[in-house]
């Protein structure tokens, strides 16, 4: 069997994990503040097409990434206002955002259909390091955003567990009444982190567009990655470092069908391979849930519930 293709696959798995890491980190920040945003898939899709249009018009991938992230924050702010200010049902609001985002993305993407973006993010060249067999293409063959995503996960972990703002964030998700008693605004913290989360998801969507697909294929551009990212947060127990591990794992299952096809291994039906990432996510999700394990796993205790000071 050709060894190179497996090396190539590992490199690609880490690459595809980039979107998952960024989207899951975004969801994690949002959920740690106590807001459940199910609209990730819609944000990914809208930021992907926004970054396409921006990068294509300006010729700059960086502008594409910035626009995509801003659009992500903007869409998340809709969810933040509905959940925090209007105290709407967060589950339905998130779903509404998915539907709205999908329609908006396809509407904006009409002129881009079937086209490829004129400028893409290229892998960084580390010179001779990139030529080392096996390690070279896997470790030194990625682009800047992939390294940034991994760095962000590490920074997020430090921020969450070793800084005062991180403590405030975690407290807002676990026990908003205490945060309120400390004189901090629960609403402000929740809106802030929902928007930061949206920006991260937006960055993930933009990267997916500008580095991976480089062409607009409507909803197939993200193909459920947003939902996998949401499951990944549960899988990682709301801890940023574990997201890297989980994302690479899911990256492998996403990449496997292409590799097996290239290797002409056909005894497994391709439809089953297509299902694999979703089935793997589902099995992981079930395996992680035992009765009463919600707290052990680290789910923020006030997740999905609006904070109302006067209600007793």
């Amino acid at each position: 069997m050709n060894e190179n293709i497996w090396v190539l696959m590992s490199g690609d798995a880490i690459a595809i994990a980039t979107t998952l890491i960024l989207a899951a980190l975004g969801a994690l920040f949002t959920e740690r503040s106590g807001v459940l945003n199910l609209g990730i898939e819609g944000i990914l899709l809208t930021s992907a097409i926004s970054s396409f249009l921006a990068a294509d018009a300006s010729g700059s991938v960086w502008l594409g990434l910035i626009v995509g992230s801003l659009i992500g924050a903007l869409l998340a702010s809709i969810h933040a206002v509905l959940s925090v200010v209007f105290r709407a049902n967060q589950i339905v609001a998130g779903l509404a955002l998915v539907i709205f985002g999908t329609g908006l993305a396809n509407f904006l993407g009409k002129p881009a259909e079937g086209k490829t973006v004129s400028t893409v993010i290229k892998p960084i060249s580390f010179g001779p390091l990139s030529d080392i067999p096996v390690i070279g293409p896997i470790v030194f063959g990625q682009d800047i955003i992939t390294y940034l995503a991994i760095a962000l996960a590490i920074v997020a972990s430090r921020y969450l567990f070793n800084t005062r703002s991180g403590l405030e964030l975690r407290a807002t998700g676990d026990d908003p009444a205490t945060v309120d008693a400390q004189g901090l605004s629960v609403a402000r913290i929740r809106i802030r982190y929902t928007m930061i989360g949206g920006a991260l998801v937006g960055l993930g969507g933009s990267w997916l567009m500008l580095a991976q697909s480089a062409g607009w294929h409507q909803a197939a551009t993200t193909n459920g990655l947003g939902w996998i990212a949401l499951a990944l947060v549960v899988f990682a127990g709301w801890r940023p470092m574990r997201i890297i591990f989980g994302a690479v794992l899911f990256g492998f299952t996403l990449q496997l069908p292409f590799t097996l096809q290239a290797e002409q291994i056909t005894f497994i039906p391709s439809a089953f391979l297509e299902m694999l990432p979703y089935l793997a996510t589902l099995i992981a999700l079930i395996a992680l849930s035992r009765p009463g394990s919600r707290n052990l796993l680290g789910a923020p205790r006030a997740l999905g519930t609006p904070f109302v000071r006067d209600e007793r």
Partner: protein
Amino acid sequence: MQIPFRVVFEQRGETPRRLSLLVPLASVFAALFFGALFLIATGHSPIDTYSNMFQDGFASFNGITDTLALSTVLICTGISAAFAFQMNLYNIGGEGQLYLGLIGGAWAGIALGDHLPTLLMVPVVLLCGALAGAAWIFVPAFVRSRLGTSEIVSTLLLTYVGASLIKHVIYTPGSFFRNPNTSFPQGRLVADSASLDSFGSSRLYPTFFVALVIAGALYWVVKRTEFGYRINVIADSPRAAHYAGIHANRTTMWVMLISGALSGLAGAMLIVGPYGKIEPSIITLGYGYAGIVVAALARNNLGLIIVSGILFSGLRVGGNNLQVTTDTPIHIGVMLQGAILLFALGGEAFRRYHIHVVRVQDVSTKKVAA
């Protein structure tokens, strides 16, 4: 910086009747206004677009019959969502259960078709579709009731699996569901006994009335039976239900299975109605997701779903025809769906709370008084 004004939410004891009607209407208009801004920004005429949508969705014979035909499916997926949502079970995988309903219905229509008369065959096809939908939600329902695994993510993930399954049964050469006589991959037609005729020159099928009857029957179940009473108690307070000796696990299981069956039924209705075979393009139409919007707009009220289902179908049908009549992208319809739902959710606050803006000083004096 201190903001001198503050928004105060005061819980309403009772919602005024006029607001129950006014708020949903206002959300629809707000969403249409928002959509108009978008249309103007992208160089389309909102007045032409909306009048075309209305004309094609409601105000013509083909329009209104197509709308009712689509509402047949959306009422089913709508009650599927609402039936689970009212118990705080978020089955958002109705889309996938609908795919399985298509497969289950097509299986019955092909395998049993020549042995049964139409009068028996159509109910069998619908039943098989419903069973397939229920089977598709079985694992999420089981792990939700036993382990507490989030049904939101699990049902959704299975939708993607279902989409692969649909493609698999149509694109695999020699598949049971694939038409053996064409080289172009398409579904095998079900037996004549398994398909109904539409009314006159319209595309409306008698299944529309089945959907109405089922919506009515479930409304009755929720309002008048012991099972419905249990659902309401669990929804209001799981703890009270526990002390009253109600088995929440078993009810959870049943509610989710029924919800899955209703989405499956919607798929089977497409088999006996317009399709007559598995149509792989179903995975791009999002009828299952639309059911969530229909349910949310009706605030999970099973009676109101018929109204919201028909209104919503009109929006879809009108939106779909835009592509033909004008150059406006078809997706404005989907975008408006989401926008209406977002505005309806925001509006809900006006229904539940008395919202008023006060000066910050007033708030502090009020607190002292309280």
